């Protein structure tokens, strides 16, 4: 039965949903994930100190999300549950980012085609190689598209521009401080400055210091540590010295 006036072509429907999701994602700030010489750093622009964009999933796996907080946070929790249940049923070493990324893709794809509205999120799932294996970086879009990325990966409204700026300064031999500095300048661009307090930084360390009983590679850096990594405290100290010299 034809319904004049109410018919929407599948192409148009998908296009509208994609536009809707993209608009939602574009409202939020971006997130950069990049490999450094000792692991993977996740750096997000985030004014909130408690509503987090970057989190721990499992021993070697971390999660980053941009877009609507409540939606990517639910995905994060589902990921923790998936990983914990799998590790409980089999073994901790059987929990992998690749299978988790596929699960996320399936879920996002399902939301995109079957629900009233798509999820307005973009996420990354990364796994650090601790025994000499390569790191894994997966980027998953609102429609369930999975991309296997090398070296670095950017998500969020401004992702293309940020990616360009990361690629200009990227080198796989960067240490963790240099990686965080690069991520900040890439997130900020030329016109803005981002303070340490507005950055959320976490790392997955390939070699965990004091590994005698620690298997969890994920570590969150607090504001003071981020300031040290960025060299802001030294810069501030230098400024102060210069001021004193002037007076």
């Amino acid at each position: 039965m034809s319904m004049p006036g109410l018919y929407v072509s599948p192409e148009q429907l998908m296009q509208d949903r994609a536009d809707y999701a993209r608009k939602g994602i574009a409202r939020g700030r971006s997130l950069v994930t990049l490999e450094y010489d000792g692991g993977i750093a996740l750096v997000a622009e985030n004014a909130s100190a408690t509503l987090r964009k970057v989190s721990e999933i499992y021993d070697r796996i971390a999660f980053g999300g941009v877009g609507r907080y409540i939606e990517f946070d639910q995905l994060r929790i589902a990921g923790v549950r998936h990983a914990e249940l799998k590790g409980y049923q089999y073994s901790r070493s059987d929990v992998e980012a690749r299978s988790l990324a596929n699960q996320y893709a399936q879920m996002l794809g399902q939301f995109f085609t079957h629900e009233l509205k798509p999820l307005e999120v973009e996420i990354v799932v990364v796994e650090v190689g601790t025994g000499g294996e390569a790191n894994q970086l997966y980027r998953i879009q609102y429609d369930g598209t999975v991309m296997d990325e090398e070296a670095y990966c950017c998500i969020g409204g401004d992702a293309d521009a940020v990616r360009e700026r990361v690629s200009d300064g990227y080198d796989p031999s960067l240490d963790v401080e240099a990686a965080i500095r690069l991520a900040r300048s890439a997130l900020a661009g030329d016109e803005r400055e981002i303070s340490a307090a507005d950055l959320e930084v976490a790392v997955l360390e390939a070699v965990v210091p004091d590994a005698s009983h620690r298997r969890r590679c994920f570590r969150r850096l607090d504001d003071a540590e981020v300031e040290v990594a960025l060299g802001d405290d030294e810069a501030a100290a230098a400024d102060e010295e210069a001021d004193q010299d002037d007076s």
Partner: protein
Amino acid sequence: MPFFAPGDDPGASFTELLRRTGSEPFAGFAQASVSPSGTGPFDGAHATTVLAVRSTEGVVVAGDRRATSGHLISHRDMRKVFPADSYSAVAIAGAAGPAVQMVRIFQLQLEYYEKIEGKPLSLEGKANQLAEMLRAHLPQAMMGLAVVPIFAGFEPSDGRGRLFQYDVTGGRYEEQDYATAGSGSLHAGTVLKLGFRDDLSEPDALALSVQALWHAADEDSATGGPDPVRGIYPVLAAIGSNGFRQLSDAESGEVFAALQADLASGGNDSPTARMGPPEASR
């Protein structure tokens, strides 16, 4: 991938998540027909003496390595002291199979809560979680598969060590100075009672724990002593402001060597002896 409707969400409880996804964490034991005396068709491994002592730096936890099945030794190198998370430890006595399963679920629960909620449970909250697991285990305990743990930890905000003792019904009792559980607990407890002082440093608390385990092994056939031939020593762990640390076999061996040297020379240098006679301290 598990996804729940709001209102039906299992929240930060891992055991509840297991139940919702169709695997009962403590199932299986309930169906087994076990006689209360432990001599029925099931005669699984039994874990014995564990203890915890408060020190000025935090708390020390120790356990022997023997597991028995009736009158036989089933394992010489069993582990009964486990890190529960980075600032706490759990030590177990009782039926080994269910006890190890309970520890595993407990460890997973603490880490799961920390990840879901974004911050770790308080020490009190952790102690209550373990009590709840024991309560869930009560039917099996009544059938002869009792598990009796000790929980000890350090609360960074408090800056002191705390320890908790339990019974099979899930009763939770906070102890101020020391706690013991298992078949050799009576003898170990007496040594701790006599040797405990309020200003016990971490090395002294470790020495006292080793002395207590030694005497428990001396009197109780189900408690294992140090085994220098195989290099197997009781597990010693210390929790303080730097978190959980288990001593290596070599370090534990040294603490035992000191005790042996002391016993050989007449026992004048033990923590108990150093306390002096009761009159002297008054």
